[in-house]
């Protein structure tokens, strides 16, 4: 019989085959770039949209071009099928571990992390077929300064097809496509003259209306000040709570604080933090508000930059806590959203790489399309940020991770808890009858009350805990058995006679069972492990109470 090992024909033949292609990457539907110039900084929001065109639940992975020097990413908002998620900072290792675990469990999960060489990578898992996804990345970065009266801003939207980073795993490597998609740009630049370059002939930007751009070419802006404008300094109500100030030239900073005693503005505000970042063109100094509420426009960006170079604050602050509050992405801290437990898809999502546009080679950039002004359209620019918060859903048409197939699993055995409670009561009554004593009415009443309270506190039908309820009931058996097999319910106390020899070992054995049982059940309690552990500890405490009480009764000496 011929085996695969014998099929050695021509070792080079495989390289000449062209029909074998890999899994095609997903492509972007559109990209929108929104830039707010806050000299000497710029706030850049890049919004990328794509659709899961496959027929499977997927994990989309997008590797982006490296961050610019001193660029600070401070916000990630992902919208999946209309449900919006804000990612929050977590320790990088823990975030990746939680993200991997959530994917394995079928939950919705989002992770934005920095790889080596400051290459950002985003993984969005749990995208149902046909769902549209929008990824908003907010960052702030210094303007390039080659001369005193000219500043430059460079925003790459594409990557070279041969962009290779040594040591990067294939799953993390960037992927490009020659396919183009719609791209637009909007620039907000008060008191500044801005010219778009690198997209054909230089194009003056005179309004905030979006213009079309080529997604394969980077955005390059040339910025010069108008009369009264500055590319060294920017401020917004710096003397008031929530205000900010940024400067790249010493002497123009106005807010007075210990590191700038020459400032002319004094204030009793207690919310400010101060940071200094060293760039290639000198220091940039920022005073910004730390709180998340009641801050001025663009203060989030300023807070991120100040937190990245944190030096001092009005009240004592831990630098790590400041960076966490500012939601900063770094090699140590990733931005993540991990979906809650719930009804899950049966399948683990299939990973699909998301491709950036292939960057045009210099020779191909001879006649790029001329940027054109667009009619105002209903695209909602992300300039007005919603209030910051912990991970949250602004809309919830479908619960994260929810099963949406037509054959959604309806919880079975709705009456099971009542049935089990009734059977338990009958058995308890029967045991008392067998012992020759009727169940005391007060104890009966107490047990009924406990049962009703327990049933009222049962978890929601759709939670995994509810599905595991039949097994969870096992947890209460040790202490019930300890109660029945012990002296606590026996008012005879053996009249001074020695108790049965089996009683104390049985009690101790049941105590051991109550300790081991929750651990033994763990492998079978997927989705309800925390609850099982808590209930197990509670039952162990009850059994210990019954056991110790029983032993004290049996051995009064």
């Amino acid at each position, binding site marked *: 019989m011929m085996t695969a*090992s014998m099929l*050695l024909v021509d070792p080079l033949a495989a390289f000449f085959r062209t029909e*074998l292609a*890999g899994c095609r990457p997903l492509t972007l539907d559109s990209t929108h770039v929104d830039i707010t110039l806050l000299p000497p900084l710029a706030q850049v929001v890049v919004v990328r949209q794509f659709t899961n065109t496959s027929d499977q639940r997927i994990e989309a*992975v997008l590797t982006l071009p490296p961050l610019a020097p001193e660029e600070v990413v401070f916000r990630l908002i992902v919208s999946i099928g209309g449900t919006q998620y804000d990612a929050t900072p977590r320790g990088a290792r823990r975030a990746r571990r939680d993200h991997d675990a959530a994917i394995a469990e079928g939950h919705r999960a989002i992770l934005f992390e920095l790889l080596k060489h400051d290459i950002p990578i985003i993984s969005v898992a749990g995208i149902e077929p046909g769902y549209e996804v929008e990824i908003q990345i907010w960052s702030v970065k210094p303007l390039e300064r080659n001369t005193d009266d000219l500043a430059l801003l460079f925003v790459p939207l594409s990557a070279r097809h041969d962009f290779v980073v040594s040591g990067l795993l294939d799953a993390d490597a960037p992927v490009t496509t020659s396919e183009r998609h719609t791209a637009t740009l909007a620039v907000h630049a008060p008191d500044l003259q801005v010219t778009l370059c690198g997209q054909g002939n230089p194009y003056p930007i005179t309004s905030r209306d979006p213009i079309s751009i080529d997604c394969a070419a980077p955005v390059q802006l040339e910025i010069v000040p108008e009369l009264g404008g500055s590319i060294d300094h920017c401020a917004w109500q710096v003397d008031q709570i929530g205000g900010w100030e940024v400067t790249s030239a010493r002497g123009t900073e106005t807010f007075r604080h210990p590191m700038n005693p020459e400032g002319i503005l004094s204030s009793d505000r207690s919310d400010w933090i101060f940071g200094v970042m060293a760039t290639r063109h000198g220091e940039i100094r920022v005073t910004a508000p730390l709180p998340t509420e009641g801050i001025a426009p663009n203060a989030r960006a300023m807070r991120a930059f100040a937190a990245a170079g944190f030096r001092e604050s009005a009240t004592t602050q831990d630098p790590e806590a400041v960076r966490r509050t500012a939601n900063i992405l770094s090699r140590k801290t990733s931005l993540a959203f991990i979906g809650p437990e719930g009804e899950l898809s049966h399948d683990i999502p299939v990973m699909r790489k998301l491709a950036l546009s292939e960057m045009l080679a210099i020779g191909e950039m001879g006649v790029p399309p001329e940027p054109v002004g667009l009619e105002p359209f209903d695209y909602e620019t992300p300039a007005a940020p919603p209030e910051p918060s912990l991970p949250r859903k602004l809309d919830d048409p479908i619960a994260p991770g929810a099963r949406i197939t037509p054959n959604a699993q309806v919880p079975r055995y709705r009456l099971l808890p009542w049935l089990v409670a009734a059977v338990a009561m009958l058995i308890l009554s029967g045991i008392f009858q067998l012992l020759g004593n009727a169940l005391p009415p007060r104890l009966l009443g107490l047990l009924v009350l406990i049962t009703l309270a327990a049933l009222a506190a049962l978890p929601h039908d759709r939670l995994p805990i509810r599905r595991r309820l039949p097994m969870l009931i096992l947890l209460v058996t040790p202490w019930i058995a300890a109660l029945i097999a012990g002296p606590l319910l026996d008012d005879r106390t053996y009249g001074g006679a020695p108790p049965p020899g089996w009683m104390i070992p049985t009690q101790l054995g049941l105590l051991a069972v109550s300790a081991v049982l929750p651990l033994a059940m763990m492998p079978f309690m997927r989705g309800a492990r925390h609850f099982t552990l808590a209930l197990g500890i509670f039952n162990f405490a009850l059994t210990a109470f019954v056991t110790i009480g029983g032993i004290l009764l049996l051995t009064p000496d």
Partner: protein
Amino acid sequence: MTGLKFDDLVRITGITPRQIRYLIAEGFVPSATGGRTYATYSDVHVTAIRRYDRLRSLGFPPAAIRLLLEAREGIPVPIADGLTLVIAPDLIGRGGDVAGMAAKAAAKVEELLSEGLDDDRKHATR
């Protein structure tokens, strides 16, 4: 090895979970058996991951690895000037009697490349 969980696969191979998900999605490694709830892996998955890892470390790009594995003509591995070893894809990363096969390969190379025939073969030739 059978009945491995995903975490076991990560620990045994030393590859990141994302890279394993990528290899499964790209077809370099077969999917788990048993769906999400009871997803299990085995020797087959471990071998497939190791095979991909070895071939990458030899410098083959993913597209070339795909071609080689699907075409099954064998993986050419340069040994020395004018000498290329061709290995069946199934053997890479599988383990087994590696030392025995290496000895046979070495003997064959020596037989083919040495200057003269050895005594036994000389006798046989006569």
